[in-house]
């Protein structure tokens, strides 16, 4: 795919050939392998995967939050390669440039400081504003994310908030400096469905209001269908399929994505056995050859065991390229 100048203007974050590996007593763990993705202004990219698929590591590594790992590749943000930056420069980006919220809001705020203090700390770490100004801003932010009586709750400690309110407070902190990218790492997994719906709505609202680009990391294709514009499906550290939400949910091409969609209980699966994906998730220890999904894939051919298929563009739907890393889809797509 050729990149035109106008294309790159909209691209906020451009990650290419990201590799992340760790040393473990059992060998080198390849947590992320050759992952590339782009995030456009004002759009939401959903990264879907099961535990150990590398979905969190791939985003945390580019902002320097993964320690003790070997990271290679490129991550261009704002004209600079994040992977080449020194920690002080990266720190200046974390917060105002790229902000993050995480899975378990109960443990993600410091239990010993008031919620408002923690938001003020975010502001004052990057802007020279007075304490009282920062406090006013914190109250305003808490109000924006729907905390009732923010002028009172600003002084409360995290344990005085409920789980849903804590996640709202985390969002308030993340948007405090009007970041261009918001990485939401499983933000609703620890919450009940009714609260999850509130949080997803809040994120959509923030995106509409501020044009923030969002990376939504989740294991739940349902969440992706609620909020994402584009989707990347990850398995065992690799990107298996990349497409727009519509294309991915309507016409999943990779056997793994198809399996994921089918193994979810649906209205039409009543009274029938679910189509499950057999087998267990693979080990990430380096040295395995071929497609990591091959041992569990019902359609695997001999080539799958030896060579990893590249993530290749399939027939494009309009401007959206649909990519899949599978020999089968590439074979049937070939002219």
């Amino acid at each position, binding site marked *: 795919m050729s990149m035109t100048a106008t294309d790159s203007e909209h691209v906020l974050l451009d990650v290419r050939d990201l590799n992340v590996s760790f040393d473990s007593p059992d060998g080198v763990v390849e947590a992320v392998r050759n992952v590339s993705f782009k995030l456009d202004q004002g759009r939401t990219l959903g990264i879907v995967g099961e535990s150990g698929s590398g979905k969190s590591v791939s985003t945390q590594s580019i902002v320097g939050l993964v320690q003790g790992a070997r990271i290679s590749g490129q991550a261009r943000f704002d004209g600079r390669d994040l992977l080449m930056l020194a920690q002080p420069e990266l720190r200046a980006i974390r917060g105002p440039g790229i902000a993050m919220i995480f899975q378990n809001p109960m443990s993600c705020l410091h239990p010993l400081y008031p919620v408002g203090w923690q938001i003020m700390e975010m502001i004052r770490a990057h802007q020279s504003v007075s304490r009282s100004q920062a406090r006013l801003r914190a109250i305003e932010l808490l109000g924006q994310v729907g905390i009732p009586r923010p002028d009172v709750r600003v002084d409360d400690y995290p344990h005085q908030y409920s789980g849903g309110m804590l996640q709202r407070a985390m969002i308030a902190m993340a948007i405090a400096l009007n970041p261009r990218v918001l990485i939401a790492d499983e933000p609703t997994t620890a919450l*009940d*469905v009714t609260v999850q719906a*509130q949080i997803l709505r809040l994120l*959509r609202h923030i995106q509409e209001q501020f044009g923030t680009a969002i990376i939504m990391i989740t294991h739940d294709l349902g969440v992706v269908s609620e909020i994402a514009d584009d989707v990347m499906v990850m398995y065992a550290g690799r990107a298996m399929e990349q497409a727009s939400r519509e294309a991915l949910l309507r016409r999943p091409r990779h056997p793994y994505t198809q399996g*994921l969609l089918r193994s*979810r209980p649906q209205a039409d699966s009543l009274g029938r056995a*679910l189509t499950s994906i057999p087998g267990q998730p693979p080990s990430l220890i380096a040295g395995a050859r071929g497609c990591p999904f091959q041992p569990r894939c019902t359609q695997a051919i001999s080539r799958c065991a030896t060579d990893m298929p590249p993530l290749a563009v399939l027939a494009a739907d309009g401007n959206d390229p649909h990519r899949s890393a599978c020999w089968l889809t590439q074979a049937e797509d070939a002219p």
Partner: protein
Amino acid sequence: MSNDVLLQLTGVVKEFTVKVGSGFKRRKRSLQAVAGVDLSLRRGETLGLVGESGCGKSTLARCVMRLFAVDSGRVVFDGDDLTHASNAVLKPYRRRMQMVFQDPYGSLNPRRRVGSIIGDPFRIQGVGSAADRQAKVQELMQLVGLNPEHYNRFPGEFSGGQRQRIGIARAIALRPELIVCDEPVSALDVSIQAQVLNLLADLQKELGLTYLFISHDLSVVRHVSDRVAVMYLGTIVEIAPSEAIYERTRHPYTSALLSAVPRFEADAGTARVESVLSGDPPSPLDPPSGCRFHPRCPRAQDRCRHEVPVLRVGNADDPEHLTACHFPLVDGDAS
């Protein structure tokens, strides 16, 4: 389906004394986790029990298993009143009712070998000789899809899905009639969930099991259940055959819960009718007066604040469909 009732709960109440605060202002308060539940399970059916975290569904499961003493009400198993039965009286009944737990890591003692864990039912209940125990355990392992040669391994060497199979093998060892499944798949990856759900369905057919299936996931419950009960803050608010709950929802809470589940459709995010509940579930420490749902209910009126609604049949044509609401939705109402 026969109308033979295997388990009958009448007005079950379970209270906990909790310590609120600590240090200077520590005081004890009583918390009604289960606040008067009537429920009956027919032989061979699967009754799904859904609710958000903290609604008391797991407590209810433990009351059924008599792991907790019940504060008031009655627990009758196959015609025998077990409400106040001592451990000695309960012991023979424990062959007939068993439990599968949520956490595949917490439900198996990490320092014991799998063979010994699955052999516990025989050992504790004094069934069979020690000599043929291993053969029986390996037979069970085969039945739930584990490699019998892994008899001497430790739980830590298995993946989450396999561990859950171990827990299931332990539960079915003595061929019980009733199995209480407390969130058996919620800790598993999506692709593994389907495997375990299929296993549970197969075992039900093969062994004629009755399930009380507890989950917070409405799509999972819908898939497995013949009937579904919805729990909110310690009480059952709606109970009906599975398709009636989803197609002809009557309780506003059930409706809100259903609409909060992310749609699994390509265009869900945009075309969605929004009916998001506000706020979090209130604390069972001070439950609201009257109908416990009224502070969050879009249909609440003055009566709901004062009068506790009872669980009753709303429509004579639908005698199996019970709702605890003063102003239930009419069939086919848009929520």
